[in-house]
C-alpha cells in the first residue's frame, strides 16, 4: 500500500506527497525515520565486523611476531594509495549529498559517478594486491608457502592465521564496497531522471551514510593490517 511510484511533476508539496508512504504523517517524520533506520543498520554492521576485529585482537596478542611478519608481506604502497582513494571518495560522496540537497542535478550525477570511479579504483588496486598474493604464495589453504626465509615452520603456521584474517576482513569490506557501487548506480539512474530535489533526497543521504561507514571500516583496517611493524623499517 505504499505509493512511491507515479510522481507527477508539480509543486514541491505535491512532490513530497508522492514520496510519502502511508504509515507516516508527514515528510519530516518519514525522513527522520529513514535516517534513524540507517543508523541502526550501521550499528548492526559494526557488530558484524566486530566479530572479525575480536578475532584479530585475540590472535594478534597471541602471535605478535607472526602478525608483524604477515603485515610486512603486504603491499604497503598499494594499501596506502587505496586509503587515499577512499578518503577522496568520501569527499565526493559528501559533496554529492550536498548537491542533492541544493537540487543541483548535474553536479549530483557527476559527483556520484566520481565516487563510483574512486570506489572502482579501490577495488582494482585491491584486485592487484590479491593477484600478488596468489603469485607470491600467500593464500591460505591454496598455495601458502611455509618456506619463507627466516620464518620457522611453527611461526609460518601462525602467519597463516594473519592471512586468513586479512582475506576475511578485506574480502568482507570489498563486498560492502561492491554493494555500495550497485546502490550508487541506482542513485545515478534515479538522479538522471530528476528524482531528487531539495525536498526529497533521502536515498542519497542514506547511501552516503553507508558509503562513509564502509570507508571508515577501511580507516581501521589499514593500520591494523598494513602498519603493524612499519616503524622498524
Amino acid at each position: 500500500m505504499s505509493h512511491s511510484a507515479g510522481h507527477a511533476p508539480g509543486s514541491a508539496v505535491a512532490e513530497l506527497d508522492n514520496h510519502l508512504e502511508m504509515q507516516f504523517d508527514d515528510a519530516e517524520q518519514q525522513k527522520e525515520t529513514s535516517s534513524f533506520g540507517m543508523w541502526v543498520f550501521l550499528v548492526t554492521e559494526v557488530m558484524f565486523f566486530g566479530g572479525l576485529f575480536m578475532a584479530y585482537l585475540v590472535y594478534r596478542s597471541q602471535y605478535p611476531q607472526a602478525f608483524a611478519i604477515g603485515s610486512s608481506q603486504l603491499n604497503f604502497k598499494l594499501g596506502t594509495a587505496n586509503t587515499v582513494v577512499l578518503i577522496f571518495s568520501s569527499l565526493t560522496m559528501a559533496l554529492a549529498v550536498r548537491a542533492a540537497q541544493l537540487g543541483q542535478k548535474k553536479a549530483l550525477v557527476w559527483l556520484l559517478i566520481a565516487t563510483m570511479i574512486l570506489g572502482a579504483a579501490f577495488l582494482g588496486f585491491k584486485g592487484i594486491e590479491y593477484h600478488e598474493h596468489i603469485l607470491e604464495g600467500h593464500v591460505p589453504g591454496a598455495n601458502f608457502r611455509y618456506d619463507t626465509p627466516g620464518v620457522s615452520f611453527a611461526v609460518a603456521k601462525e602467519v597463516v592465521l594473519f592471512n586468513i584474517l586479512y582475506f576475511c576482513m578485506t574480502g568482507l569490506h570489498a563486498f560492502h564496497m561492491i554493494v555500495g557501487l550497485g546502490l550508487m548506480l541506482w542513485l545515478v539512474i534515479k538522479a538522471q531522471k530528476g528524482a531528487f530535489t531539495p525536498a526529497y533526497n533521502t536515498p542519497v543521504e542514506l547511501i552516503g551514510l553507508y558509503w562513509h561507514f564502509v570507508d571508515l571500516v577501511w580507516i581501521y583496517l589499514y593500520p591494523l593490517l598494513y602498519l603493524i611493524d612499519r616503524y622498524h623499517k
Partner: protein
Amino acid sequence: MSTLTAQPLSPQPLAPELPANHYLNESHGLKSWLLTTDHKRIALLYMASITLMFAIGGIFAMLMRLELLTPPADLVSDDTYNKLFTMHGIIMVWFFLIPSIPTTLGNFLVPMMIGAKDLAFPKLNLMSWYLFNIGAVVTIYAILSGGVDGGWTFYTPLSTGYLNSHVVAAATGIFIAGFSSILTGLNFIVTTHRMRAPGMTWKRLPLFMWSNYATSVILVLATPVLAITLALVAVERLLHFGIFNPALGGDPVLFQHLFWFYSHPAVYIMILPAMGVISELISTFSRKRPFGYAYIAGSSIAIAAFGFVVWAHHMFVAGISVYAALVFSLMSYAVSLPSAVKVFNWTATLYKGSISYRTPLLYALGFLGLFTVGGMTGLFLAALGLDVHIHDTYFVVAHFHYIMVGGTIMAYLGGIHYWWPKISGRMYPEVWGRLSALLIFVGFNLTFFPQFILGYLGMPRRYHAYPPEFQVWHVLSTAGASILGVGYLLPLIYLTWSYKNSPVAGPNPWGASGLEWQTQSPPITHNFVTTPIVTREAYDYTGIPAPALAVRSEEEASTYVS
C-alpha cells in the same frame, strides 16, 4: 494507556457482530497475502511459518523421547540420535523460539499498541518474512539431504573438521534467518522511537512494548556476531582453514566466546517478549495497573544490558581463567535480579486484584511457576563449584527447557489466546482453552522435572543410551512428553475451528485498557480510523466497562466444568 478519541468507551453489546471491513477481508487471494505489507497479515504469515517449524522440531523431540524410553539403543542409531538432538535444537531455537513472540504477537501488536498505522518499514517487514522462509528452506534442505549433527552449538573444531554432515548448509540457513531477526529488531526499534501516536509518551508505553524494545536491541546487537561467527565456521570448514582449530594455531575457546556472546543474549531474546506478554495478561485479568510499572519496564532494559556480560557462564569448564569465571559467575547472579523484580511485581499485581481465571491468565500463572523454577536453577548453574558437577548433564537440559518451553511457549500460547479475539474477531472456546493450559502445565512438569533429578544423578546430555537405573525417570519424562504433545495440538485444532464457529468477540471483550482494544476486531488495515490521541496513563481502567462477553462465557464454562 488509552484514548478518549479513538472510540467511545461504551460497553460493548452482548452479541456483537463482525465488522463489515477488516484486514482479513480487505483483499483476497494468495497474492494479496504473499505481497502484503500489512503488519497484521505478516504476523499471520509468520505464525504459519513458525508453527510448521515447531511441528518439525517437535517430531524430532518425540523421536528422541521414544528412543530414551529404554536404556539400550534400540529405535535409532547413535549417529541418528546425534542428528536428532542437533536438528531439534537448531529448529527450535532459531526457527521457533527466537522469532516466536516478536514476529507474531509483536508484529501484530507493536503498531497497534502505539497507535500507528503500521511499522516504520512495512516492506522490510515482508522481506524479513521471506528471509526467514529462505533460511528455513535451506535448513530443511540440510535435514532432508542427510541431516546435521554436533549439536546446535556448532562447537569447533568438531563442526569444522570432523563431522560428515551438512554443517555448512545448516549454518547458511541460520545465517539467513539471522538477517530476518535483524530486520525485525531494527523495525521495532525505529517504530518505537518514531511512530508513536500523539500523547503516547515512553512512560505510557505498554510493558509489552518495553520488552519488545529491549528484545530488539539484543536482536540488533547480538545477531550480527552470530552471523559472522557462523560465516567463519563455514569458511573454516570449506577451505580447511584453522581459524578455530588448535592443530592449526586457532583457538576453539574464541569460537565459544563469540558463539555465547550471541547465544546467551539470545536466551533473553526468547524470554523478554514472553515477559511482556505476561505483564499484559496479568494486568488485564486482575484489572489493575501492574505494580511497579517503571520497575518492570526498567528491568527489561536491565536484563538486555546485563545479558551481554554473562556469556562465559557457559564456559566454566572450557578452560577460561579462574578470575574470568569468578566475574562471569557474579554477573550471572546479577542478571537474575531484574528477572526477580518482574516476578515479584507480577505477584504483587495479582494481590487484591479482581481476578478472572480465564485461559490466558492460567497460562500466565503457569509461566510464573515454570519461569521461577527455570531461573532459580540458572542460579545453581551459575555457581562455579556446582556447575562443574552438573555441567553438560540433564540438569542443564531441564533448566533451559523450564525457561524456553515452560516460560516462552506458555506466554506465547497465553498471548495467542488473549489476542485471538483481536486477531480473528472471535472468541476461543474457553473450556478447551483451560484444558490445554492444564495439560501443558502437567505434561511439561512431568517431562522436565525428572530431568533435574537425572542430571543431578549424573546422566549426561546428548546420549541415546543409559544405565538401567535411570530408566524410571526417563519413562516419566516420555510419558509427560506425550501429554505435552496433546496439549500443544489442542489449541491448533480449536483455534482453527473457532475462526469460523465461535461467538463474535467485539472490540474489547476483556475490558482491557490497551490501544489495540480501542479499535474494532479484527481491525481495519490501517488499524485506526483516525490516529488516536492518547490522554491517559498506561493501564488506567477507570471508565472501561467490565467485560460483558467474557462474563457470559465464564458462566458457560462453569456449567460445563461442574
